[in-house]
């Protein structure tokens, strides 16, 4: 089981994503932005950060990178792809997921442990969750406000393509409290919060019982391993 983790210039969370993949029991394959060769990986993580300095629009330049073009093609063929934060923005700019992400409504960069509801478990990245499970993983973004036109929003809701919704607090003004989306096929999932920062006790969000013991993010990586094994 080989999972690629992409690094663009300005990516920050590639090492945390790689660590999450290793903790889940898969082999990490570093993928470089300028290299269109996906090295026969079974899945890809587009991690968070500020690819290309967020120039032009968040994710817009990364969407044109050789590695991304190869990922788009492979994703259309069913390769599981997870976009986290800036990775979600790259997926949106690559048109693998619809809509757009704009500056947070309150104009602040938000960093908090965020409660989410898992709204869809029929995907490569969420099958280890239970439907409507409530999870907490870190969120840290300045441009995480999800928007789409009315027609797209209706389709997303009608076809069950919302994968995660913010609970209790909508941190960035996202329409319909949307925190993450899936594509029709279920192989592509993107979300603003960071599962890779909640995979090991001692380093995750606080839970009711113990400080920093939250590991809800680990299920993303368990899910994809299950999906690939069963494929």
């Amino acid at each position: 089981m080989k999972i690629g983790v992409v690094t663009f210039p300005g990516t920050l969370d590639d090492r945390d994503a790689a660590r999450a993949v290793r903790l889940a029991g898969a082999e990490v394959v570093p993928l470089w932005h300028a290299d269109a060769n996906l090295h026969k990986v079974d899945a890809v993580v587009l991690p968070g950060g500020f690819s290309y300095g967020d120039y032009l629009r968040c994710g817009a330049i990364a969407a044109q990178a050789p590695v991304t073009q190869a990922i788009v093609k492979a994703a259309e063929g069913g390769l599981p792809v997870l976009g986290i934060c800036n990775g979600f923005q790259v997926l949106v700019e690559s048109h693998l997921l619809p809509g757009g992400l704009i500056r947070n409504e309150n104009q602040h960069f938000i960093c908090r442990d965020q409660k989410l509801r898992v709204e869809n478990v029929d995907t490569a990245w969420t099958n280890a969750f239970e439907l409507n499970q409530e999870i907490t993983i870190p969120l840290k973004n300045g441009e995480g406000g999800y928007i789409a036109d009315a027609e797209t929003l209706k389709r997303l809701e009608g076809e069950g393509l919302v994968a995660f919704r913010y609970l209790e607090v909508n941190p960035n003004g996202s329409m319909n409290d949307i925190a993450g989306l899936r594509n029709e096929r279920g192989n592509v999932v993107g979300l603003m919060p960071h599962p890779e920062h909640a995979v090991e006790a001692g380093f995750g969000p606080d839970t009711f019982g113990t400080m920093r013991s939250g590991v809800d993010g680990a299920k993303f990586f368990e899910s994809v391993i299950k999906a690939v094994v069963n494929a």
Partner: protein
Amino acid sequence: MPKIIVEIMPKADLLDPQGKAVLNALHRQGYGKIQNVRIGKRIEIHLNDAPSAEDLEGAREIADSFLSNGVIEDVVNIHVED
């Protein structure tokens, strides 16, 4: 040097947080008459020669496909400057 100018604005019905922050700052400076401020982008594409119809067509294409994102922005103007 001849240039093609592409002007991009956030969609009219979207909140423009940059514009709002600047508006608030201007109000603090006493410019109470100002009703609204919106901030967009001006992108200059420099060419060696005066742009042909084909160059302009190309500029329109990249303005729509790459320089702007139709979900959140509108290309409001494309013109040539010397």
